[in-house]
């Protein structure tokens, strides 16, 4: 068994920010990720982020990712890629399989879980046909692999993921034939829906997908209007000529590692379902375990980075790398930046849901 001070699981925005903050405090950090490269979802986020200057507003996600990795390279941060964490035992032992062949156990003083979230599926007739995919998968194809999944796309779901990916599919050269939303109101920011709409993409609320048709791949989609009880209204079916159906139906926190390690479960419908209980410092009921980012409740990358800072700082403080005064001052700065992201008509609900988790007994 090898030993490390702080092990961070997941090299996305939350994990990288946690590692940076802990290393800047003087701790030595090992960050582990199952992918070929660090950055999580940042490298497919080619749009400019919202927020204020201190949240790096106006900078594209891809450039924020590059900067975080560059910053990490100057600090005492070791990165293991292609490495899967398969379990956490006795509160401190992280079982890792590296490159699918080497099994290693790392004994850590503190562990920060930043595993992110996974896309939700929606099932309907024909949903297993090639051409039906998560919106995040389509975004990975166009922005990471530079492959257009199809020319004519139907987007299911109008939250920010649905509208941002619709916009990026247009940028990549596809036509988005429609965005459908089962609810009565569109979910995403109005500025995102407006730029997709002025590109000529129609939005249909109270509408869902009924069927994907095609022999060996999607060649048509049937959409249908929904009544007040969310039931399809017969006779309102519409056939769309599409070759790709993207599903943007929300995300679920990737909580398996945390729960298997003994973290207490709290249900938060607003933040994506079952999440590990944690306090304001991102510490769970297992004293050596911290969480940050979407695994602690689905929000967005800017919030994930601030949560990562809270977790990294708290882990370093618990190992006595920084004094209380410094901890309080850096912690309160991050908390203030998070609060400003969790305000307004979109953020308020998330702020209340987060407080409910923290105060859950």
């Amino acid at each position, binding site marked *: 068994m090898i030993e490390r001070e702080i092990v961070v699981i997941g090299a996305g925005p939350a994990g990288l920010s946690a590692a940076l903050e802990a290393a800047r405090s003087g701790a030595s950090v090992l960050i582990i990720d199952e992918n070929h490269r660090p950055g999580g979802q940042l490298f497919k986020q080619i*749009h*400019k*982020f*919202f*927020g*204020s*200057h201190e949240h790096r*507003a*106006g*900078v*594209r996600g891809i*450039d924020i990712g590059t900067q975080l990795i560059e910053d990490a390279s100057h600090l005492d941060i070791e990165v293991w890629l292609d490495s899967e964490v398969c379990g956490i035992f006795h509160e401190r032992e992280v079982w890792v399989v590296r490159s699918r062949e080497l099994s290693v156990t790392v004994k850590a003083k503190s562990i920060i879980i930043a595993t992110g979230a996974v896309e939700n599926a929606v099932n309907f007739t024909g949903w297993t046909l090639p051409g039906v995919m998560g919106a995040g998968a389509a975004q990975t194809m166009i922005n990471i692999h530079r492959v257009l999944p199809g020319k004519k796309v139907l987007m299911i779901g109008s939250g920010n993921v649905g509208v941002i990916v619709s916009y990026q599919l*247009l*940028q990549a*050269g596809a036509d988005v034939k429609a*965005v459908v939303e089962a609810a*009565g*109101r*569109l979910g995403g*920011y*109005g*500025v*995102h*829906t*407006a*730029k*997709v*709409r*002025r*590109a*000529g*993409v*129609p*939005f249909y*609320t109270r509408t869902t997908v009924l069927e994907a048709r095609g022999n060996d791949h999607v060649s048509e989609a049937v959409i249908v209007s929904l009544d007040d009880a969310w039931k399809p209204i017969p006779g309102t079916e519409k056939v769309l000529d599409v070759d790709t159906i993207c599903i943007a139906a929300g995300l679920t926190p990737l909580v398996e590692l945390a729960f298997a390690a003994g973290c207490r479960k709290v249900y938060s419908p607003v933040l994506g379902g079952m999440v590990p209980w944690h306090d304001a410092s991102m510490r769970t009921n297992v004293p050596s375990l911290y969480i940050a980012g979407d695994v602690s409740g689905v929000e967005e990358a800017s919030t994930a980075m601030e949560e990562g800072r809270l977790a990294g700082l708290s882990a370093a403080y618990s190992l006595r790398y920084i004094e209380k005064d410094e901890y309080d001052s850096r912690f309160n700065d991050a908390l203030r930046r998070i609060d*400003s*992201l*969790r*305000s*307004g*008509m*979109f*953020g308020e609900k998330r702020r209340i849901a987060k407080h409910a988790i923290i105060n859950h007994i």
Partner: protein
Amino acid sequence: MKEIQQELKVCGAPSLDELHASPCYQLPPQDRRALAAVIECVEGIPCNPCETSCPQNAITVGEEITALPVVNLEACTGCGICVAACPGLAIYLKKYLFKDDRAYIAFPFEYLPLPKEGETVTMVNRLGESVCEGTVLRVVKIKKMDRTAVIHCSYPNRFYEEVVSIRRLSL
């Protein structure tokens, strides 16, 4: 708030009524000679690069970054820095009097291919519908704008308020 945003939350784009009811939206008066920034950001999202990018301090969001941005038309010089700085692509410049009966718009554009100067393009409204033809006057793409181009066009000023962008060009 909910009622004035019905169109935005159903068809994706704000209606003119919704815009007129929002403190952030101010169409520059027809007798104004200089370009001015027009903001269509009516929801109070946590964001303020418009405010911090403006060299004239002509845009105010305030301490609470979910407050709506408001342009001080007297201070705005129409420089266009906010147009590319806005992550939501929700700002453009406009003026009613460009030449003869033509208005002027400069809007953010992130699609390839870019139009060319002098090209005739189709101007569209907020719903993406064709409104009229326009002429591309300038295509500005500088490093500072970080891969967001700003396209300057003239178009018939009887469509002054309606037009917000151009139809995408095919690859």
